[in-house]
């Protein structure tokens, strides 16, 4: 597996208190990687260290194989959470300047500026100065500058926070479009969004890593099934527990919702185990309304933090 970002024992202390504590994780190249944690978990500080704004107190990190002291600035982009746009310059001027600073030719910088402004629906506001931007516009500017050129690694700290649903959807589309050709590290409090966008994720709490894996593993897509019933059957728990490929059964108080932990045999598709369990349920006289594989990321997040 190629690694785009690697941190090893990354630590940041302020006044002796560790905000990020011995954090080690890897982001596979080409993945869309969710970086999750409650408020104050250390996500923004981690982003700031990966962008080179904040010096680690201990540990190290690499981006595209280069250390934080020598970041590949022409190959990476970021949306820092609390960066501001130059108050006295227009959106167009600033984006062109940043594009040129990124190494684009003046002609390409103009074209890229137009492209990203259009993508975040700011083309008509191109002449607005930084100090006159609303929160939503400033956020969209931040997203726009992160998509200038063709960066190989993009770090996005809360990219859709404060955006209206239409603009948030646009940003998600832009992130999705980068899948495979760029590595995107995205932090968000919107867990449904992360679940929808990301193929890998890490969860941190109090500055420490509490989980990291593919999203499928994290949410137990290959082990857990939520079955919602139209009508409950007789002795469902007993029947299901008797099946060799069912590990555990949790039935909701109303009897119409079951969570099954499956134990498929090695090499066997998990669908076989699901089908067997559903067959057993129907045999008990139950009717099946829906089947959802895995736990929601929200449930997993709440368990871990």
């Amino acid at each position, binding site marked *: 597996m190629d690694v785009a970002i690697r941190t090893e024992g990354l630590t940041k202390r302020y006044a002796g208190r560790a905000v990020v504590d011995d954090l080690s994780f890897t982001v596979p190249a080409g993945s869309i990687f969710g970086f999750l944690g409650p408020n104050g978990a250390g996500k923004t500080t981690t982003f700031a260290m990966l962008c080179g*704004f904040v010096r680690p107190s201990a540990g190290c990190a690499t981006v595209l194989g280069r250390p934080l002291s020598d970041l590949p600035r*022409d190959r990476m982009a970021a949306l*820092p959470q609390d960066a501001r746009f130059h108050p006295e310059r227009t959106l167009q001027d600033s984006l062109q300047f940043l594009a040129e*600073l990124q190494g684009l030719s003046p002609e390409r910088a103009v074209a890229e500026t137009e492209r990203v402004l259009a993508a975040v629906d700011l083309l008509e506001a191109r002449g607005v100065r930084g100090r006159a931007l609303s929160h939503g516009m400033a956020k969209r500017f931040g997203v726009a500058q992160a998509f200038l050129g063709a960066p190989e690694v993009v770090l996005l700290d809360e990219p859709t926070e404060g955006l209206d649903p239409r603009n948030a959807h646009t940003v998600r589309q832009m992130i999705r479009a980068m899948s495979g050709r760029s590595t995107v590290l995205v932090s968000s409090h919107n867990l449904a969004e992360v679940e929808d966008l990301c193929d890998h994720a890490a969860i941190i709490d109090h500055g420490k890593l509490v989980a990291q894996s593919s999203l499928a593993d994290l949410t137990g897509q290959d082990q857990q099934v939520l079955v919602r019933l139209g009508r409950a059957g007789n002795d469902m728990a007993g029947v299901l527990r008797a099946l060799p490929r069912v590990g555990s059964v949790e039935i909701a108080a109303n009897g119409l919702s079951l969570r099954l932990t499956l134990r498929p045999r090695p090499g066997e598709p998990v669908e076989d185990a699901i089908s067997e369990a559903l067959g057993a349920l129907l045999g008990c006289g139950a009717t099946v309304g829906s089947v959802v594989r895995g736990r929601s990321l929200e449930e997993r997040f709440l368990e871990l933090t």
Partner: protein
Amino acid sequence: MRVLQNTWKIARFDILTAIRTRRALVALLIYLAGALATGGVLVWLETEFGDKIQMARSAIDAADAMSAFKSDAPKAYEALGQLTGGDEEIARHLLHMPLVLLGFFWTTLTFLPLLITLVSHDIVNSEVNHRSARYVLLRTSRLSLLAGKMVSHGLLFLAVTVAANVALFVYAWIRLPVFDLLPAAAQLLRFWLLTIPFGFCYIALAALVSSLVDGAGLSLAVMVGVLIGLGILSGQETIGYLSPSAWKLGLWSPGLLAVAGHAAMFVLFGAAFLAGAYARLRGRDL
């Protein structure tokens, strides 16, 4: 190479910002107003007392310059005695220069640090404070950011001093009955070239202060305090040489080598201030 390219891109963006925000215009107007006011007074002096000044020059040439300053010379030339700190060689040298150029150079050496303080006190911390520097530093190094800021402010003051010099020169040429164009132009060029290391030193000092201090208002106050401190330090006999202000007098010297040596001291001071600013910027969290 990339560092140099990005330095220039940052400088260009900063200069355009200074122009669009009229910061450059304000600097130019302050400097021009000061230069023309000083020039106006000095041109009037030369016009009113031209004959006496010429006579005094001849008398002083033949006599001991310092005592002549104290006796026969017009009041305006008594200042030369003060200006040169009693250095007779420098005083004799300055005596043959148009009063208007002397006055203007003196004004530059006295007030350029104040103008730099006024305009450049937040050269580094303005963008660091409102965090627009983060978007820049995603794409380039802290060295490029600092160098770009230095270049933009340096070019701004260069342009302002050129404009003020030319305006004053033309004014003096038109108004003075006797004005030797070529020697005066050569002298003006010499003074202007000396303004470059002098200005660099004080812009670098502003960069150091604004790297160490957060907040524009505080860095302005600290910068003013530092200038006063350096002025006091320069008057100390044993450690006065540690202040750039102590090396100002040498810029008036007749000998090219002496002038170059003193100008080099300003470059050295500037380099030291700049190194300090970079060390601070490099080590800090942004």
